[in-house]
């Protein structure tokens, strides 16, 4: 359960102050999923970082299962846009890094990581470096690393934005499967309207800077088989388009 109460964050830099978030309040039940969409620079990543415990809000607070997130990594896993993987580590070392950091020994790491890599179709690439992988494979390594930590909450910041349409759709289904199977609480930042509708049981539409919640849309059909082909899916996409001010 994630509760956010009137979160505000101001970046203080030498000369100018940037109000990145203002009075963001929402609630996300355990096992639910929420996608966040909004114009570039509206504070989506900032919000995610606060939930992950990487940034402290200027005012307001986030409570996850009764505690404020401070030491990241215990319950939450964060998957970043581009720099998530380390180019100097092999696929296996990248995927097991979280466990290593937590002090698991080699054997334990292997027992957890190998099946996950296998399941994500990366078994043949364990000794490759990220530079030798395709974008989609790289993103799967990032997901593998997060899953290895058995998180309750998975936070993703535009995880699929650099992928081609085909790979992107495959991985969306893949994330949906993982969400269902592991009963995760999922928060996903995206720029894609379809992706927001496909992966968010709740869709959080944010307004331009300073980031505020413009509207929180319930998307009850999300996760049903064949949702993408249904009328409701397209209706939801159109509604989002209007909200975001995209002409049709």
């Amino acid at each position, binding site marked *: 359960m994630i509760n956010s109460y009137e979160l505000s964050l101001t970046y203080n830099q030498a000369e100018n102050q940037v109000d990145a978030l203002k009075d963001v309040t929402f609630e996300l039940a355990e096992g639910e999923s929420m996608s966040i969409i909004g114009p570039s620079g509206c504070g989506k990543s900032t919000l995610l970082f606060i939930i992950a415990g990487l940034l402290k809000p200027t005012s307001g607070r986030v409570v996850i299962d009764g505690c404020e997130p401070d030491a990241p990594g215990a319950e939450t896993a964060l998957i970043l846009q*581009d720099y*998530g993987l380390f180019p100097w580590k092999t696929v296996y070392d990248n995927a097991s890094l979280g466990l290593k950091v937590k002090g698991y020994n080699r054997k334990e790491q292997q027992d957890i990581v190998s099946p996950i890599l296998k399941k994500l179709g990366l078994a043949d690439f364990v000794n490759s470096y990220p530079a030798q992988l395709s974008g989609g494979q790289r993103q799967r390594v990032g997901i593998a690393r997060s899953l290895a*930590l058995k998180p309750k909450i998975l936070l993703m910041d535009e995880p699929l934005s650099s992928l081609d349409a085909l790979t992107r759709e495959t991985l969306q289904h893949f994330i949906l499967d993982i969400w269902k199977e592991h009963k995760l609480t999922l928060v996903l930042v995206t720029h894609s309207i379809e992706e927001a509708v496909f992966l968010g049981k709740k869709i959080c539409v944010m307004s331009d800077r300073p980031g505020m919640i413009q509207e929180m849309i319930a998307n009850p059909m999300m996760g049903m088989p064949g949702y993408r082909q249904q009328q409701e899916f397209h209706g939801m996409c159109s509604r989002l388009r209007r909200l975001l001010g995209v002409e049709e």
Partner: protein
Amino acid sequence: MKRNSLWKKTIEIFAATLIIMVFWYLLAIYVKNNILPTPLEAMTEFFMIFSGILWEHFYISAFRVVISIIAAMLLAVPLGLLLGREEKLDRYIAPVVYLVYPIPKIVFLPVVFLLMGLGNSPKIFMIGLIVFFQILVTTRDASKGVPMQNIHSMTSLGAVKWQIYYHVVWPACLPKILTSLRISLGTAIAVLFFVESFATTEGLGYFIMDAWSMAAYSQMFAGIIGMSFLGLILYVVLDMIEAKWCRWQYL
């Protein structure tokens, strides 16, 4: 594949040596003066005396250079990595570094000799001091340039500070550190020649100057070859370290 590239490298070095020899030979013929012996004469001399008198000088020079570079590296790399990431520390130390860096530290040689005597230590200190700043400045800038996203991604896995340094900052900066070492190597050998060229009776610098004063030009060139050889070996060692530790850079 690895063996292949090593083989290729060896051939390259031989080919390059050959080209230099040809130019040297042509120049020697043109100058026609025993100050500039032909490569054949110089090489013969080099191989004749290398295992004899030259070896001791070679050995002591190698010792001085290697110790100074390693010592400078052991101090400069951790400090540079820290300065690049810890803003508070950097705010105090960076101005000092930037003030001291451009000072030609070699001019303090007399002072160093006076304070530390005439043994190995002032020479090692002098080389180390100069190289230290080169490595420090490069490492600090590299460490400052590690993307914040990389750090966040590590923090989000629950890493504490030393783990971030170990898994992210250090490997991210390593290629630049090795580059700075390679540049420092050239500097170190130049400084080595300088500090060995007076007030000592050991080292290749001394050997070259001594041969010069006796007008033993083939011997002098044997010393020069020795010094180049020393540089080449260390350069190759750095190359091998890079190939092993920074494999991800060349994919």
